């Protein structure tokens, strides 16, 4: 079997398994899987910036929240329908990433982390200050009328799962295509050696900005979908925690692997869900698992697997 066939085979198999899961799993896990798929889209976006282009951002919560509020505010204040609201959320994530990128990409490394973190914190506080428009710290419920997409009520289980699945499948296939495209190779080149890429004639600023905007579009789409599928928009999603989460998903699953973000989101979700049933200190368990990961498999699960056995894994 050629590598190309293996790559497509594995990714399509994952999608088929996820599609089948809704018929096989109990309803609790089906809804969890819908959440995980949306969060995985967020993490896939983070992976485009961090895993493939080497941009270690601490501000992705801002892009996620931009998508969430970009969708939610028009539904609340302007009574927009779901489709234009979702598109608005997607674009808001990309636009926010573009604006932040124009300024933050003048820096690199640790400075880039700090600048993106500060932008995200400013965004969070803006949401609190504009309380009368945003619902402040309490947030707001997305009206049921704004959660009907193309005739499907996203507040019900099957349409919600299918919407999350379609978004995830689109995100995954697009990511697979992107990282294997010439531009994807240039992204990796930026990560590996920016100076050499510049010498070869590529404009690092332009490449990194494009990657960050793509990353923001993913985060925006995930934020908009999360708000619409689960009916709530709130400022908590703009806190630092939601910048750290996609990073953890990516590190756990494997930075620079297409399926890594999903695997990381899946494992992290259930790690918290299961351990919280046994101990109050479940975040300690999560922390210990991550320390163990960094010590013994610093490239994440799929990254390590690729290194040791599956060299064709994108």
């Amino acid at each position, binding site marked *: 079997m050629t590598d190309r066939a293996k790559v497509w085979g594995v990714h399509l198999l994952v999608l088929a398994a996820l599609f089948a899961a809704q018929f096989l799993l109990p309803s609790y896990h089906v809804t969890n899987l819908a959440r995980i798929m949306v969060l995985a889209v967020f993490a896939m976006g983070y992976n485009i910036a961090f895993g493939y282009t080497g941009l270690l951002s601490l501000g992705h919560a801002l892009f996620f929240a931009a998508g969430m509020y970009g969708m939610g505010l028009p539904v609340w204040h302007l009574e927009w329908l779901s489709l234009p609201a979702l598109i608005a959320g997607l674009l808001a994530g990309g636009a926010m990433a573009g604006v932040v990128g124009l300024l933050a990409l003048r820096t690199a490394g640790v400075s880039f982390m700090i600048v993106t973190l500060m932008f995200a914190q400013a965004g969070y506080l803006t949401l609190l200050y504009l309380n009368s428009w945003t619902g402040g710290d309490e947030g*707001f*419920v997305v009206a049921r009328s704004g959660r009907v997409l193309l005739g499907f009520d996203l507040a019900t289980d099957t349409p919600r799962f299918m919407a999350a699945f379609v978004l995830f499948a689109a995100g995954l296939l697009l990511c697979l295509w992107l990282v294997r495209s010439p531009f994807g190779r240039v992204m990796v080149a930026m990560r590996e050696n920016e100076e050499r890429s510049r010498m070869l004639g590529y404009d690092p600023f332009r490449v990194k900005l494009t990657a960050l905007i793509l990353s923001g579009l993913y985060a925006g789409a995930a934020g908009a979908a999360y708000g619409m599928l*689960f009916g*709530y928009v*709130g400022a908590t999603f703009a806190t630092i925690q939601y910048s750290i989460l996609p990073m953890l998903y990516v590190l756990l699953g494997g930075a620079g692997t297409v399926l890594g973000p999903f695997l990381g989101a899946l494992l992290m979700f259930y790690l918290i*869900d299961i351990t919280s049933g046994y101990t*109050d200190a479940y975040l300690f368990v999560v922390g210990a698992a991550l320390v163990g990961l960094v010590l013994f498999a610093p490239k994440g699960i799929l990254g390590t697997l690729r290194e040791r056995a599956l060299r064709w894994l994108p």
Partner: protein
Amino acid sequence: MAQDLIGLTPSRRALLKGAGAGLLTAGFVAPVWAQAAPVKLGFQLHRTGIGAAYGRWYERTAQAALKVVNEAGGINGRPVEIVFEDDGTDPKRGAEVVEKLTSQHKCDLIFGPLFSHVVIGSAPRAGELKVPYLVCSEGFHVAGGMLNRWSMQPGITDVRAQVSSMAPWVLANLGKKVTMVFPDYAFGHDHRDYFTAAVEAGGGQVVAQIAVPPTETSFTRYLPQIPNDTEVLYHVMVGPAVLTFVKELGEFYGTGAKPEIFGFIDSLEAVDMASPGLEFLEGSHFWEGHCRVKQADASEHEIAYRAAVGVDDNGASVSDAKDVSTYAHMFSVWETLHIIKAGMEASGYQGIADRQKFVEAVEAMTEMPESLAHVQGNKVFNGKTHQVFGHQFISKVEGGKLIKVHTTSIEESLYPDAVDYTTQSF
């Protein structure tokens, strides 16, 4: 051998006695419970995160109420269980916990969350799962119409009712020119909007509204903004910053003339009034949802409740005098569990197919007289807005203790309905 055994063979009379005793035991000690499946209640608990101080006491209160309910025969003759799940005081996890309690633990209903953002984040999922969701949150979001038919607040009054009912007493006894200091986010804005309206309606005047950003750790630059003609300083700071706020307020006024000070006990829930730096609060007044210190006129039910939840006369744990309770709020958990019992019994609740009947039974409730089920005082439930109304207490700090000086009437806390949930479909 056979001979020996014959000597041990019980007589017919002894056998009958034994059988009778067995039947009696089965009949009286464990009524129908041997066969009846327990009623399973889910508790969405702030065990970790910013609500942990409340969560710790909410869990203890729920356990105490559970013991009382089970000792009194359970619900509809069935024993009651509570499944606690930590939501980390986070709305995303909150919605997941609603899912887990409903779909995985198969709970009959869910109750217990306090923090507004967790409630607002979780209520949509409760509505979709069609599971009754009884919150103990104080927020105006239930009565304001933001939630749904399955979400109710029958155990505690909301902030709008609280501030509106206290304004007349503040104006009549402390002064008519009020300066408000509040955190600059939704909780503070509720106070700003509803207290200002109530003060103006009562002929008073809010001379300044000082909004403090949520990230602030020092208040010295805000204190000079308090106008000199302020007669009453109304504060409602929350979180660790409150100790700094009060300390800096004390340093700002020193021993000179100062306005009357009126605060919300939310600022000092689970905090010992004898903490260093709080001396300045001597002589000031506080709103309390339920009096932390056992009052001279405490009812027998209040006394029984205090003993059941393990709180001493000063409001701290009986096992650790430094572990101060969240007494002003935690009664809501006790009362909510008793309302669940009353609602399930009124609707003849048998299982999850009867969830709708349960909601309708609670909606039909009106008067809730003071009793062991309603230890904080009598209340009136508005089935249309899913919100309960009750008395509020104003206490004065005397000798480092909160002594009740006024009880508001229920009528003072009422306001026009903003929603009629009973017109919404299930």
